[in-house]
């Protein structure tokens, strides 16, 4: 038993390094997509202290809108622009109809409101687009669908070009987002709002504008995530479930930290794959990915309740 836990997995890694690389690559792809979903949560939480339960359904809704518009004969890239317009409209509507009337209410009320948004978007999406699985317009968007086959150490490493594209686009999106938050006036306003609501309002930062902006950015992230996941196995309401994988990422990385979301996503993506392949499948019968990330996050929380990169909040009683 001790051999199976402490020696055999590492021997397997050493004797089949190409397979180890494949495991790490698959973990990286999953991890970067978890990180993207987590980023959507973090942005909204930072600016409004709202835990946006609707992030998962926003991924589905954005992807369905894109595919649905294309099915109506609209050219692919126009579909992307129109989908962004829809996500902007959604951000404005949520701010006007849901968030503005709830300003000043306890956080739990706002959280419950995002559950309401989730249920509403599920219903609306099903009425407009139906519940059938749909094919993502991968090729129409110019995303290559072939594989790159490498033979490291005489082995086999298969890299899907659409996964490579997803990793590159996600990385660029993260860089652009960081630049926006750090280098632009609006970005700094978002951060200021996250640091201190009252102080930010007192210097003339518009709460309404910022909320629309962060929900729109979350919508952009949702669209990119929806395209990347949808290209892997089609677009359906099952995609919403993947958003729950972002929860341990947030627990691990910290709810306010963009760096935490990225590092947490990558860590969970790669570690859960390594654990599943080298320990979970041989010793526990597999399917450990459903719980591994949560256990890892809970262990981290035992030592750092604010997550790896979260801010330590001390409240006087």
């Amino acid at each position, binding site marked *: 038993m001790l051999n199976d836990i402490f020696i055999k997995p590492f021997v397997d890694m050493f004797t089949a390094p190409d397979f180890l690389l494949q495991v790490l690559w698959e973990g990286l792809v999953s991890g970067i997509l978890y990180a993207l979903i987590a980023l959507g949560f973090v942005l909204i939480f930072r600016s409004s202290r709202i835990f946006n339960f609707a992030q998962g359904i926003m991924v589905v809704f954005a992807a369905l809108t894109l595919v649905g518009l294309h099915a109506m004969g609209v050219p692919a890239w126009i579909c992307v622009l129109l989908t962004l317009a829809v996500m902007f409209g959604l951000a404005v509507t949520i701010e006007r109809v849901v968030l503005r009337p709830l300003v000043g209410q306890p956080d739990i009320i706002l959280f419950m409101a995002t559950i309401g948004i989730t249920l509403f978007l599920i219903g609306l999406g099903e009425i407009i687009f139906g*519940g059938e699985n749909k*094919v993502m317009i991968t090729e129409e968007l110019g995303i290559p669908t072939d594989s790159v086959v490498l033979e490291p150490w005489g082995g086999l490493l298969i890299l899907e070009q659409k996964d490579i594209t997803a990793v590159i686009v996600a990385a660029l999106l993260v860089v652009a987002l960081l630049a926006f938050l750090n280098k632009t006036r609006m970005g700094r306003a978002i951060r200021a709002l996250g640091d201190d609501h009252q102080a930010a309002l007192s210097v003339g930062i518009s709460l309404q504008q910022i909320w629309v902006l962060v929900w729109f950015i979350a919508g952009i992230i949702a669209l990119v995530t929806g395209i990347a996941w949808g290209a892997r*196995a*089609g677009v*359906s309401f099952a995609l919403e479930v993947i958003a729950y994988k972002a929860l341990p990422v947030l627990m691990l990385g910290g709810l306010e930290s963009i760096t935490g979301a990225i590092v947490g996503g990558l860590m969970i993506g790669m570690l859960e*794959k390594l654990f599943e392949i080298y320990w979970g499948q041989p010793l526990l019968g*597999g399917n450990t990915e459903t719980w591994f990330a949560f256990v890892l996050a809970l262990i981290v929380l035992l030592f750092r309740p604010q997550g790896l990169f979260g801010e330590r909040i001390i409240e006087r009683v």
Partner: protein
Amino acid sequence: MKTFTRIAVAATLGAVMGTTAMAEGLYAPNLAYRTGPFAATGIPLMNGQADYMNMLNARDGGIGGVMIDFDECETGYSTEKGVECYEKTKGKAIVTQPWSTGITLQVLPKSNIDEIPILAPGYGFSPMADGKVFQWAFNTPLSYWDGASIILKYLQDQGDLSGKKIAFLHLDHPFGKEPLPYLEQKAEAQGFELVPIPVGLKEMQNQSAQWLQIRRERPDYVIMWGWGAMNAGAITEAVKTKFPMENMLGVWWSGHDADLKIVGEDGKGYKSVSWSFPNPDAPVMADVKQHVVDAGNSQSNEEEMQGVFYSRGLVISAILAEGIAVAQEHTGKAEISPADLRWGLENLNFTEERLEELGMTGMVPPFSTSCSNHTGHSGGWILEWDGAKFVKASDLIMPDSEAISELEMAKAQEYAEANAPWPVNEDCEM
């Protein structure tokens, strides 16, 4: 204003009473799932079921002169919601169609008390075939163990399975685990290695870990017991990892046209066992088009209607309709009770002639049921994806009834003992 209010109230009451009058008849609820992660597979099935019943209502005025009140209660494939739907509809229902193995297992003990037949065509608990023990449950025309048996027989025909390795990729859910006892027994008897690979509900669209395991294990065949989004996830991963498609076979719920269309040509060679097959030229299709589709009462579309799942939905409703018709003939009354319907479902006889009369030739294999045989064990075809649609790749293959019936009886007995006191049908001779 007062007059307006009165008119409005009268109109509302009239509408309500009218609806009630329209809804009278034999109440046949369907615990449907048109929403949630499994909606993609549910919608064409539910559409087929509803269209067939609507066609009977429009064409024949129902069955035996009584309209069928075919009602859907949405479960989202959730076991909890399914049980709620069962409780909500059981009052006047002559049947319950639970539409999930999880819901079926929950409803199974209740059926003895409520005395309502459970109709679970092609799903549920395989030992339900033993009608003496499971008096109220029907899983016609094939059980999951039958399906597993047909797949193994087909593979055996391709070459001896002794010494081979078979990966069993399945949803980590009662449905996915259902064929395991049979497969484990056969692995021991036939000398092949069985590698069970579970897929969690949250991992259905991200099965890279499962397919890495398949790459490492290098199985000769992959048998898939998938449902909903799991099917598309598995097939795209199989294409990605370049697993030979001709060595991958699925249960009938893993043979959905829309899932294969995602990979198109790359999925060529993938196979699925099936107890139904679309026949666009069948008279029943023309009747559905004339009485339901053209009348604007169908939720389906032309593409979906040509698929395997829509066609299966039609067959499922035809099984229920036939059970009702047989019961009406036996009792001599049009308004049958749930107990009458149970008799009808225990005396189904789908011969080639009867299928022709129903306009469904070639859409389901002939089968018959009895009080002791609630499945019928019709046999199934192996369907193959040709890049654009499923085509038949085999003649009808019959399951290994001898081995299955032994296991069925043993497990049924085990279930009855574990749930004692469990009433059995003493009047039924085996």
